[in-house]
């Protein structure tokens, strides 16, 4: 039985449908992420799971029991808020102890478990400090300890890393993974940052305009986006309009307007004659002065621009048919910032196994 089941949940605010007939299930012990742009309905969904809001239609089940009549304080579900929501008038220890006290545990038990939780997030020494006296990263840890201390069935995290700076965010990502593995509690994580979602999750539900567009493991979301939105939203992607010419055993023959024939890996359920998109990641696209015989697809073009970001350089190459492709080249050799200059004539190519054909509904 899944731990959490969202069954055809809809939530409207006036004319606006924030969550539109969404269904999915979260398994015990999973690190599950709701990913999408702001306004996609992910936070509304999270608030309904926590009990701050109720669905207009559909059910939310925890361990197979409908939560509709259970108020927030009686759900075995805790939330880590975006801005941490620490009680400003309580010390770190008393913040962490809060849910234990609400559960009516004895003083000794409260003390012991609070201390354990603070040790778990390495904040033992700060127990008597107040929220305004500690740093953002420390607040984050207090919020986590407070959410985990009485071992809820489910921990909801609402963009918990959003308030931290980049360096700290990366550190906390590693810590979150480690923590979730240690405590074994199911996490439902909400974010709009795709790299965060890819790095942390067991599974991701990509949301857009109140619906789940794709639900899968991170590598499949990245490698095999099911539609234009997912391909575009997750990472950078070259999207080429294509028509299927032939479905063969070793792959597809596509016709791309102005470019001619392009070979691509096979895609499930694909029919000759249908139209779709070829999604090509920039790191799959090669750029060289001379074409490599291993490239099944090769086209001449001209370097229009490039962006050096240290480890890699992104090139914008304009093909002779007018398409502009992005290509990502690693700068593995030190001291070398670029292989090509703006205006250079180059060959662009990729293998028959690169890219992914996306069916357009």
């Amino acid at each position, binding site marked *: 039985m899944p731990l959490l089941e969202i069954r055809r949940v809809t939530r409207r605010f006036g004319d606006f449908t924030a969550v539109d007939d969404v269904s999915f299930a979260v398994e015990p012990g999973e690190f599950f992420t709701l990913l999408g742009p702001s306004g996609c309905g992910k936070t509304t969904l999270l608030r309904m799971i926590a009990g701050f809001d109720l669905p207009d239609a559909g059910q939310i089940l925890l361990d197979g029991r409908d939560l509709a009549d259970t108020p927030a304080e009686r759900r075995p579900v*805790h939330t880590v808020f975006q801005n941490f929501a620490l009680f400003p008038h309580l010390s770190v220890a008393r913040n962490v102890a809060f849910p234990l006290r*609400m559960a009516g545990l004895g003083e000794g038990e409260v003390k012991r478990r609070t201390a354990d939780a603070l040790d778990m997030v390495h904040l033992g020494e700060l127990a008597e400090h107040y929220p305004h006296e500690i740093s953002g990263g420390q607040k984050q840890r207090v919020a986590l300890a407070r959410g985990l201390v009485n071992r809820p069935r489910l921990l909801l995290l609402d963009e918990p890393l959003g308030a931290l700076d980049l360096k700290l965010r990366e550190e906390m990502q590693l810590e979150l993974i480690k923590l979730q593995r240690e405590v074994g509690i199911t996490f439902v994580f909400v974010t709009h940052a795709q790299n965060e979602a890819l790095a942390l999750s067991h599974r991701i539900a990509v949301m857009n305009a109140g619906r789940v567009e794709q639900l899968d493991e991170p590598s499949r979301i990245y490698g095999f986006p099911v539609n234009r939105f997912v391909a575009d939203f997750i990472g950078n992607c070259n999207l080429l309009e294509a028509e299927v010419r032939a479905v063969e055993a070793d792959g597809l023959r596509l016709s791309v307007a102005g470019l001619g024939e392009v070979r691509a890996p096979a895609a499930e359920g694909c029919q000759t004659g249908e139209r779709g998109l070829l999604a090509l990641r920039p790191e799959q696209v090669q750029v060289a002065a001379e074409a490599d015989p291993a490239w099944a697809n090769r086209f001449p073009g001209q370097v229009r621009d490039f962006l050096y970001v240290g480890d890699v350089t992104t090139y914008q190459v304009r093909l002779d048919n007018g398409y502009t492709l992005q290509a990502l080249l690693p700068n593995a050799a030190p001291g070398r910032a670029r292989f090509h200059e703006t205006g250079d004539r180059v060959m662009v190519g990729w293998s028959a196994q690169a890219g992914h054909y996306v069916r357009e509904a």
Partner: protein
Amino acid sequence: MRRLPTWLLLAAASSYAFLYLPLIIVVAYSFNDSRLNAEWVGFTLDWYRVLLHDEEMLLAARNSLLIALVSSGAATLLGTLAGLGMHRWRPAWLPLLVITPVAMPEILLGVSLLVFFIQVLHLTLGFLSVVLAHITFSIGFVAIVVRARLAGMDESIFEAARDLGATPWQTFRLVTFPLILPAVVAGFLMAFTLSLDDFVITFFTAGVGVSTLPLQIYSMIKIAVTPEVNAVSTLLMLLTLVLVIAASRMDKGFMRGAG
């Protein structure tokens, strides 16, 4: 940081002087050994001694304190509820009802209560009518301070409390109330000061039944300027000084609430 032009500093300094000079003179003359508030003659505490033997003044002071205590206690309770309610449910009518008595010229509230007490309630003007009148205008001040405090707080901490297992009542007792307490205390001190100081509304609602310090001072200065008034003014200023400083220490929003 910009440098301020000299003329601006001078203008500001003279405004501050304009605010303080008259009060300093009142205090100084309360120690002046002369019947006339005209020039410095010598130091004396006589006017304070006169004050201590002025039975009417002492009675008025006792009335003022009692009225301030009762009315500010009630106004704090009602005003805190109003502040909480305005913040939580945002009913459109309540701010109008709470703020208008504060925003109108005092004389209007004074005369309408006078008519209401006599014509409708058939109440003999006195202690009770003054207390009711003072509660009416103090509620708004308490409510504004409490609401300002709530508005400055992060909504999600109340959700966090519920989320972590607190019932609505526990959330109020353990999170909301401790957090608004400084504003409640500041509101109480403010209501107390306002009641102690009020002249206009008391003037219309006290009748002959009860006298307060401001009424006593008014009737004295209406007749003649005597240094005894300086002495009672000095003491009253000292008291309100303490109250205002205490209130502003309690809650930063107090100053904004006062404006």
